[in-house]
């Protein structure tokens, strides 16, 4: 059985039924982890797009200079 002892303050943990509170914590943590992983993947992708935009802008500037 998973225990919440040590995760929650003693005053809060003592008010919870002993059984199953760890499973509830596990379910919510898993959900939070899935959302966070997704957001992290989105952030990595965004970084890649930003890099491409910078590259594109730099190349555009180079091309403009060459034509001038």
């Amino acid at each position: 059985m998973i225990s919440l002892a040590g995760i929650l303050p003693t005053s809060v943990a003592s008010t919870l039924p002993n059984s199953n509170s760890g499973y509830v914590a596990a379910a919510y943590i898993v959900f939070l982890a899935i959302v966070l992983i997704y957001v992290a993947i989105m952030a990595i992708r965004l970084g890649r797009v930003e890099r491409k935009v910078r590259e594109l802008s730099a190349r555009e500037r180079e091309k403009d200079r060459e034509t001038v």
Partner: protein
Amino acid sequence: MRSPSLRALSIATAVAFCVSLSLVFFYAPIEAEEGFLQKIFYLHVPLAIVSLSGFVIGGLMAIAHLRTRDQRWDLRSYVVIHMSLIFGAAVLITGSIWARASWGHWWVWNEPTLVSFLIIFLLYATYQPLRFAIEDPERQARYASVFAITAGAFVPLNFMAVRLSASYVHPRVLGSSSNLPGPMMLTFFVSLGAMALLFATLCCYELAAKRTRILLKARSRILGFQ
């Protein structure tokens, strides 16, 4: 979507989740039979409802794509199904955690609700390989739309079949047999609203990212950089 509305949607989602979690842990009473374990219900059931609704909405968007031939509908359908699949994975994991605590098993094969959800999840897991196995973008969009419509029609049929099934042990939340007290019902609907908002926000972010990438590719092509 413009960024101010995306920002507003994100703030609304964050506020809704704070309210929802506060209600779950500080307002909703502890259920007599399940005890504290019942708190998983406010996460698992909204996830399942939003995920299944997303599959159906993806099918409706695919119909709009086939009717109008507008590629934006295909993109929306793809994003909604993609997000529903992620939510579906969360449904299976949180459901398994609940089953382990309540029934003593991570998975029960003779329970129609669990198995039917797994079938739907596996069905949609084939959507992306099918989609990206086709190189021609127009054919890819058309085939993906046909798949989304067929599978989207299967979702409510499957749901009804499970409801009509006589022997089940999975608890029923909404329906004639449901007798949730007011505070629990309120908490449940707020959680459902928060989950729907999260789904919409993540879909909008994904759509914005995909559109930006498409625009970037097009711009590179126009400038002759690719």
